[in-house]
């Protein structure tokens, strides 16, 4: 005889929390705010991430590389003395 397989689903803690959570008041956005957010995001569907984000990443990378280069040069100068 084989052991009964463990019942897939929620354990005791999860069920107790679900019982408690049922007593919480419902939260929702007001319809005007929901529509504003939806229409703002809807315009971007399928457009990909904004170019600004890519440009920011490139600028940060350049800044980091320049700083590292400067630090390396300074260390080399100090070791040269």
């Amino acid at each position: 005889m084989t052991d009964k397989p463990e019942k897939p689903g929620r354990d005791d803690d999860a069920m107790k929390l679900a019982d408690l959570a049922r007593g919480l008041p419902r939260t929702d956005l007001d319809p005007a705010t929901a529509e504003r957010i939806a229409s703002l995001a809807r315009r971007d569907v399928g457009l990909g991430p904004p170019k600004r984000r890519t440009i920011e990443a490139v600028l940060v990378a350049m800044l980091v590389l320049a700083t590292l280069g400067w630090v390396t040069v300074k260390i080399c100068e100090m070791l040269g003395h």
Partner: protein
Amino acid sequence: MEALSPESDWVAGLRRGEPGAFDAVFAAYRRRIYGYLVRMTRRRDVAEDLLQETFLRLAQHAKRLAGDTKLGAWLFTVAHRLVQSWGRAQAVRAALAGDLPAHEPAGSERSPLEALADTQTQLALERAFAALAPAYREVALLVGIEGLQPVEVAEILGIRPDAVRQRLARARAQLAEHLGDHR
């Protein structure tokens, strides 16, 4: 042949860049994501901003979604990361200001969430959830309210399922302690 769920239709629509698919996803998930965000940040204005950012990211990633994407898990993962970033920024601001973190309710005034409570029991429950440490509150919300499985929550939070179960047990114990006579 197995019928496609609306979710797979929505993902296919998003991958084709259809605004109608986006609207369907927004209608299906906005309340759930907002509920999570507002109970994690304890602020309506912040929750609205983060909700907007979550759905903007969905729109911007629409064409790159995998065909088998689980939208709920995807959205909660983005929302979780946004909450984490916001929490870090709050902590830095608080440290610079030499103040306590601003996202925890202060004093005995009712928070906007508590104002929704119709009964003393609801109020006590809302306060008990608010009093949980964010890591425990998050797991309690995702499992207790959203009905997600610990394995799904583990993927969303980037932790092990065992850690989720541990946090669940602690959240439950702390809630029981806070609720006392209200249970």
